[in-house]
């Protein structure tokens, strides 16, 4: 059997070496798309709730639907930044460099979203506004420490 030409061997070696890197890129792209989808869901619930809470839209059950949806979606946030998933969506390296601080921020978001859902169930407007602010503060605090702003 004739030995394979050297350039063919080099070509195969290069292809084998390239596979993992390419696979990582593909994974990161998928994570970015999913991450942005989760964040869009959160923003949608928040924006819809703010219209009812602060801009006068009559509440015929809107608030509870969105608060429950937010509390449910909030449990995703701790799962969408696996190590190696890249920072193209503005995720700062601090997420992976300070895992305890990031985990605490995620827990506060989960807790505050749950409290918001409970406050809306209570029907007390003052509690609702306070709980909305707490949830917003958790979003803002996390973005301040862990997200690169567009500006």
């Amino acid at each position, binding site marked *: 059997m004739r030995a394979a030409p050297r350039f063919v061997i080099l070509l195969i070696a290069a292809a084998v070496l390239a596979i993992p890197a390419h696979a990582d890129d593909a994974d990161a792209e998928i994570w970015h798309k999913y991450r942005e989808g989760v964040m869009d869901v959160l*923003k949608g619930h*928040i*924006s*819809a709730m703010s219209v009812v809470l602060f801009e006068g839209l009559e509440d015929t059950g809107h608030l509870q639907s969105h608060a429950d949806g937010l509390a449910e979606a909030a449990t995703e946030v701790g799962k969408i930044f696996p190590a190696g998933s890249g920072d193209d969506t503005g995720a700062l390296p601090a997420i992976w460099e300070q895992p305890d601080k990031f985990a605490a921020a995620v827990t506060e978001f989960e807790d505050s979203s749950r409290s918001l859902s409970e406050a809306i169930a209570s029907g007390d407007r003052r509690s609702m506004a306070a709980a909305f602010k707490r949830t917003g503060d958790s979003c*803002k605090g996390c973005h301040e420490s862990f*997200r690169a*702003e*567009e500006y």
Partner: protein
Amino acid sequence: MRLLALAGVLLAATAAAQDTQVQRGAYLLQAGGCITCHTAKADDAIPLAGGRALESPFGTFYAPNITPDRDTGIGNWTDEEFVNAFWEGVGPGGKYYFPAFPYPSYTGMTRDDLLAIKAYLFSLEPVPAENREHELPWYLDTRLAAAAWQSLKFSAGRFTGDPERNDEWNRGAYLVRHLGHCGECHTPRDRLGATISGQEMAGVPPRGDNKGTPNITPHPDDGIGKWRKREIELFLELGLLPDGDFVGGSMAPVIDDNTGLLTPGDRAAIATYLQGLPALPRATAAE
């Protein structure tokens, strides 16, 4: 006896006026954004004892201790010295300030407001904390450079208001242009670091690692022209953007320490003023 009673009433009235002045000063200190810059970033930092690093194209400035400590803070400052620092950009002993201290904006403030802030600061516990030297290139590392900058780029003057506009607009103008000094971050600067007057609030273009700041004029595409007044108020109160996102970055502490603590009336005034600005496209480069 009657004289003694009168003296007692006068003393009580003076004490009440001082209390009111201190309370007003506490509010104005928040509206002036003093806490954000004059408090170090560490979680356990002592408020107003200095230390926040302000990075600029000209070097890194460290905000000083403004507690009433006599050795390291402002405990020895007279009323005139305090007012002069804000109105003229010159501290006790003729020390010219670099415009990292935003006196080009504060120069428009009223004497009453400044003295209320001083009264509040002097009601606080003195904190001994040495000031950190600025990190500047050799040619700026002298107060003569600050004096030269002032002679070229600074004009002192109080806010006089616009009688053609209503009270809300005028209050907003005072808050945005002077006390809140929004233009220090949102108005582009020329090559000598002075804000460009015809570009008020048009945003700062990115430069190197610095991503710049957004245009907050009512331009429909580049600015906040599509925001309703209520949306601007909610942003100032909570950091909530119209699409449901929450702001982060360097604006987050401004919401926490400043605009989120204002009265609804003051936030409405800021929104009115911003919506009345000329709609400018986003600035692209330093002139």
